[in-house]
Every structure is written in structure tokens, then in C-alpha cells.
């Protein structure tokens, strides 16, 4: 029998009361949204340590999502690389196939408490949209998902999944027609229907309290990893690697480890086709601080402060911003951020598929590749955990095209 999980959401030092992670974060939103995010912040703070809320969250994480998911020892990949022991935190085993649903579950439970029945969400890869449509169906809520037109094509499978669950998918035809524009459109919807609408953001981005709240809901990843690794190895891992789009799987994984200075933390961004602006989505690697989507954070942008078009083979990393806490963790040096190209990600995907029988999402594949390079340089006594943020089924068409 699986024991029921009550994730302990721990209030950390950051963000401060104004929603800042050092200089980053904040609430850079149109006035009309201020009451909504204030209401949300109040509501969230009131449930954050409410045992009944945590019990409910734990119940659905366990009975519906299938948590705790495994920490799988990747014996063949380890052997092939010949360095550190590689473990995989299996978010791909969650219902709907990625970590996104942890956060959605938390937010929609909160929305239910707040009496909001109209849910909106943006989605890039479609995983957050699918997760939102899923939980909305389970809770009997209306759901509208904004998705860049380009992404509705490259992630068509996920569009059908959302529609089957009675979500309305709205193809966003403005701007670059990808994730960033889907967020713009979702915010416009929110501005217009602010009274009855709950905006379920899919990553640790947006105005306060989202970066904090999403991190907290996702920190179940890191909490489980910590105790599972303890059980398997009797100590903490030497290194942890996660991919960074908006940064939610990474923050959820890192959260309980940040205070353990001996654990090296690595965030991996989308290096795309090249280091030229427009050819990648490696915000922390190449970006500069800026203000977008309600937060102050690193951004890929022009000299004039126009947000850049970005590119990644993986729709879920195709975002010119990043969660503000990552910006802080970068500047403080606590986390090392690097990037991996489209081609390398494909290699990572193939490698994990062939050695472990696990096809990762293209997003995740970035972390896999980076982790292998890292593990190679580590000793056999050390161990490294990859946050296997999602499965690759959704990406098979893209992968086919590139093989």
C-alpha cells in the first residue's frame, strides 16, 4: 500500500513580502490585476500551512497523480557514461506525463476554495495545458487554454487531448505565436474576466505570488527525491540537474536542496541552433534583466528592450524569460546554469531511450545530455539526480523529423 503523501510546503526566506527574490520578481502588472493577485496571495498564504488543504493536495497527488513516483537507478546509462551513479526522478510517470500536474493540482484546489469556476491557462508544449484541462475536468471546472498557433501544430496530440477533456483551446495568432504570446493572451483574458477567472500559470513565472506558489507546489519533487536518495544511498546526491524553461521543474527539484550547499545544482536551458539571438532560448546564459509578464527577471531582449523571438526544438523551453528565483540563484552563484543545443538534446533523448527504455520529453532531454557530460567527470562513488520532468510521447513527430 502506498502511504498517503502530505507534502510539507516550507516557507523559505524568499521571496520577501513584496514578492522579490533579491532584485527579481515583484508584481509588474496592470492595476486591474492587482486585486486579483492580492486575493490570490491572501488565499494562498491562508492554505499554505492549512493541514486540511495539505491533506487534500496529498490525497490527489497520491490517488490521482500517482505520487510518490520512483527514483530509478539508471544502471545502464551509468555504466555507459562511466562516472557518477545516475538516478532519474520519474515525473514522467505522473498522470498526464510530466511534472506540470503537481502545480495544477495545487492551484485548482486553491481555485476551488476561492469559488472560481472559470480556469484559464497558457501552454507551450501542451503539457501544462493538458494538466490543467485534466484537473479542470476532474473538478468539473470550465477551462480555456491559450496556445501559440505554432505550438498547436507541433504539439497537435496535446491539443486533441485537451479538447477531449472539454477544454477550449484557443490558438494565439499574435506575436511569435508561441508560449510568450500565449501568456500575453491569457493575461488579456484575465484582465477582461478578472472577477470569476482563475489564471493557472504553468511555471514559476509571472507576478508574485505565482513564482513562490508554483515552486512550493512543485517542491514535492525535491522533497521526495531527497528522502528517496537518502534511502537508496544513505546520503544526499552530489549533483542535481534539471532543465529550465520557465523553471518550475527545476525550482521544485532544487527547493529543498538549496540550503544544502554540498549539493551542486545545475539548470539547463535550451541552446537551440546557435548562440545567436533568436536561435535559442537560453535566457540565463545570454539574457539581461528586464520586466515581462509581471516579473523582473533575466530576459532575452534587444538593446531597446523588445523581447526577442526565441527558438528551441522543445516547445516547453521556448520562452524568452525565466522564473525570477532562478535569476537570483544565478546571480548568487548557488545554481550553475548552462545550455544544450537542439542537436545535443536529441542525442540525449536517444541515449536515454536506448540505454534505459525511457523516452524523455525533448525538454527533459536537455537535462539528460548535460547530466551525462557532468557525470562523466565525476567519480563512481558520487551520485547525480536528473529531474526527468516528462515523457517524450508528445514529441515523437518532432523527433522523427530530426532523426
Amino acid at each position, binding site marked *: 500500500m502506498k502511504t498517503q503523501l502530505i507534502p510539507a510546503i516550507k516557507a523559505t526566506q524568499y521571496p520577501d513580502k*513584496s514578492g522579490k527574490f533579491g532584485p527579481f520578481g*515583484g*508584481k*509588474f*502588472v*496592470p*492595476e*486591474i490585476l*492587482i*486585486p*486579483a493577485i492580492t486575493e490570490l496571495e491572501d488565499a494562498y498564504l491562508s492554505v499554505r500551512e492549512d493541514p486540511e488543504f495539505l491533506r487534500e493536495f496529498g490525497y490527489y497527488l497520491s490517488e490521482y497523480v500517482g505520487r510518490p513516483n520512483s527514483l530509478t537507478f539508471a544502471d545502464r546509462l551509468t555504466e555507459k557514461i562511466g562516472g557518477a551513479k545516475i538516478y532519474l526522478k520519474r515525473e514522467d510517470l505522473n498522470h498526464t506525463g510530466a511534472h506540470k500536474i503537481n502545480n495544477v493540482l495545487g492551484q485548482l484546489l486553491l481555485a476551488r476554495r476561492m469559488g472560481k469556476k472559470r480556469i484559464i491557462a497558457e501552454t507551450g508544449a501542451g503539457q501544462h495545458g493538458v494538466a490543467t484541462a485534466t484537473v479542470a475536468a476532474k473538478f468539473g471546472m470550465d477551462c480555456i487554454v491559450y496556445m501559440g498557433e505554432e505550438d498547436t501544430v507541433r504539439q497537435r496530440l496535446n491539443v486533441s487531448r485537451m479538447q477531449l477533456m472539454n477544454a477550449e483551446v484557443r490558438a494565439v495568432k*499574435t*506575436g511569435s505565436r508561441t508560449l*510568450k*504570446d500565449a*501568456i*500575453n493572451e491569457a*493575461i*488579456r483574458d484575465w*484582465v*477582461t*474576466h*478578472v*472577477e470569476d477567472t482563475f489564471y493557472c500559470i504553468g511555471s514559476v513565472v509571472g507576478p508574485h505570488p505565482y513564482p513562490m506558489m508554483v515552486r512550493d507546489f512543485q517542491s514535492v519533487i525535491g522533497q521526495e527525491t531527497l528522502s528517496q536518495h537518502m534511502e537508496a544511498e544513505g546520503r544526499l546526491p552530489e549533483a542535481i540537474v534539471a532543465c529550465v524553461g520557465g523553471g518550475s521543474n527545476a525550482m521544485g527539484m532544487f527547493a529543498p536542496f538549496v540550503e544544502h550547499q554540498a549539493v551542486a545544482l545545475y539548470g539547463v536551458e535550451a541552446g537551440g541552433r546557435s548562440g545567436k539571438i533568436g536561435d535559442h532560448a537560453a535566457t540565463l546564459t545570454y539574457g*539581461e*534583466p*528586464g*520586466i*515581462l*509578464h*509581471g516579473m*523582473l527577471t533575466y*530576459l532575452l*531582449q534587444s*538593446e*531597446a*528592450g*523588445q*523581447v526577442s523571438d526565441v527558438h528551441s526544438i522543445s516547445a516547453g523551453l521556448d520562452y524568452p524569460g525565466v522564473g525570477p528565483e532562478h535569476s537570483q540563484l544565478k546571480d548568487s552563484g548557488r545554481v550553475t546554469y548552462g545550455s544544450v543545443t537542439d542537436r545535443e538534446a536529441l542525442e540525449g533523448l536517444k541515449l536515454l531511450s536506448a540505454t534505459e527504455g525511457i523516452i524523455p520529453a525533448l525538454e527533459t532531454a536537455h537535462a539528460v545530455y548535460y547530466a551525462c557530460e557532468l557525470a562523466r567527470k565525476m567519480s563512481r562513488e558520487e551520485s547525480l539526480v536528473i529531474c526527468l520532468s516528462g515523457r517524450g510521447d508528445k514529441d515523437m513527430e518532432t523527433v522523427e523529423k530530426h532523426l
Partner: protein
Amino acid sequence: MSFIRQFFGNMRKANQKVLSIYLPAGYPTSEATLPLLDTLVEAGADMIELGIPFSDPLADGPTIQRASQQAIANGTTLLQSLNFLRLFRTKHPQVPALLMGYANPFFRFGWDRLVDMAAAADVSGFIIPDLPPEECEPILSRIHSSGMDLIFLATPNTPPERLRLINAKGRGFLYAVSLTGVTGARKNLPPETKAFLQRLRRESSHPIMVGFGISTPQLAAQMAKEGNGVIIGSAVIDLIENSPDLPAARKTVFEFVSQVKKAMG
């Protein structure tokens, strides 16, 4: 006392309602901006808001989105826009001119540098829709000490305590957002708008300018009654967008703005 506050004092004394028009810099072309600004003033606009285009105008409807994209494509920059304003203010020293734009282009330019150069261009004030009172600290006191104003917005869902904060931080006038929604011309405004504006008048001592959705002389006249004046943006851009060339645009804009001004009495 800031130029804007003086201006509103004068208008109130003259028992005049204020008509403010928003125009995106560099739209539809860079060359069009100064002539169009002239046209606005000639037609009776009392105040000008020059928009700095941004790639992600998330509080704007389709009209301003398209105009922003066009202006970016035209290579419009903040420096250039400051120059437009400097020339405009030289020519029309009686007409307040505000710089309106999303935070990021300003942030990238540098808050301090922005304020200094705006002051040098004789800019009257700023409207930054995604810089609410809680985020304005890096810029507010410098704006004030340079004799300019930072305009805040109030919306139908702004609660009383918050309005007090906005009143306290804001200066110049209060931008009353007529509806819950994005910018863009509307046929009608919701029935609640009137009560909202009455509440603002009761609870704020700032002049009140009503914006968002105003598309016709009738609507403008109606809304102007409830405050100190109105702000029109998308309705004018729609006219420009539908004009074959600049002279045609100037003509149609002139007619529309004149009618609005006339209707506002």
C-alpha cells in the same frame, strides 16, 4: 507644482473638459508622428500621450497590438520618441505631453537616464501600465523632483484602501479605466462605469481622466461629464489604420477629434 497639475487647474477654472489622445510613436511611419501630433492639437486635443511600442503589450487589445508591432518594425526607439516629444513641446508649449509605455523598454534604458532625458525633452509625465504603485519606487521620487508626474490607473475593481495608496503616490491626474478589459474601441461602456467614476470623484482629489473603450463623440461627452476629461486611443488608431495615406489620415483624424471636442462642449 507640476505642469500637468497647473494645466488641470487652468482647465477647471475655464470650465473646460480635457481631451487627451494617445498616439503610438512611429506609427504608421516615423515621419507621420509629428504631423499627426500637430493635427491632434489643431483638431482640439488638449493633451497628448505618446506611446513607446513594446513587443508584448499585454494590457492592450488588437488595435494597439498591431500598431505596436508596426512601430517596432519601423525601428521606432525610445530616444527617437523623446526627440519627437521635445519638438512637440517646443511647438506646443501649452499642451501637456506624456510618455506612455510598458516598463521594460524604460527599464532597459535605465530609470535615471530616462527621467533625466525626459525632463530635458520637457516631457510632462509618464503612464506605465505595468508599473503599479508597489513597483514605482526606483523612479517615483526622481520623476517628482524633476517636475514631472507619474500617472497611476484606477480600475472598477480597485478597492477603497488601495485607491488611497494610489491617491497618495499619484500626481497629475488619475487615469480611470472605464471597464475591466484591455484597450480597444467599444460600442458602449458598461452601466457600472458611471457609479465607478462617481466613487472616484468622491474618494480622490486628483483630476480624473476616463479612458479605455471610448470610440464616439457621444461616449466621450458622456464620460467627460463624470470626470475631468477623456482619453482616446484605439478609436484614433483605427482611423489611421484605415486611411490610404498620411494626408487622408490627418484629415479623418482631424474630423473625428474635432467632433469629439465639440461634443464634449
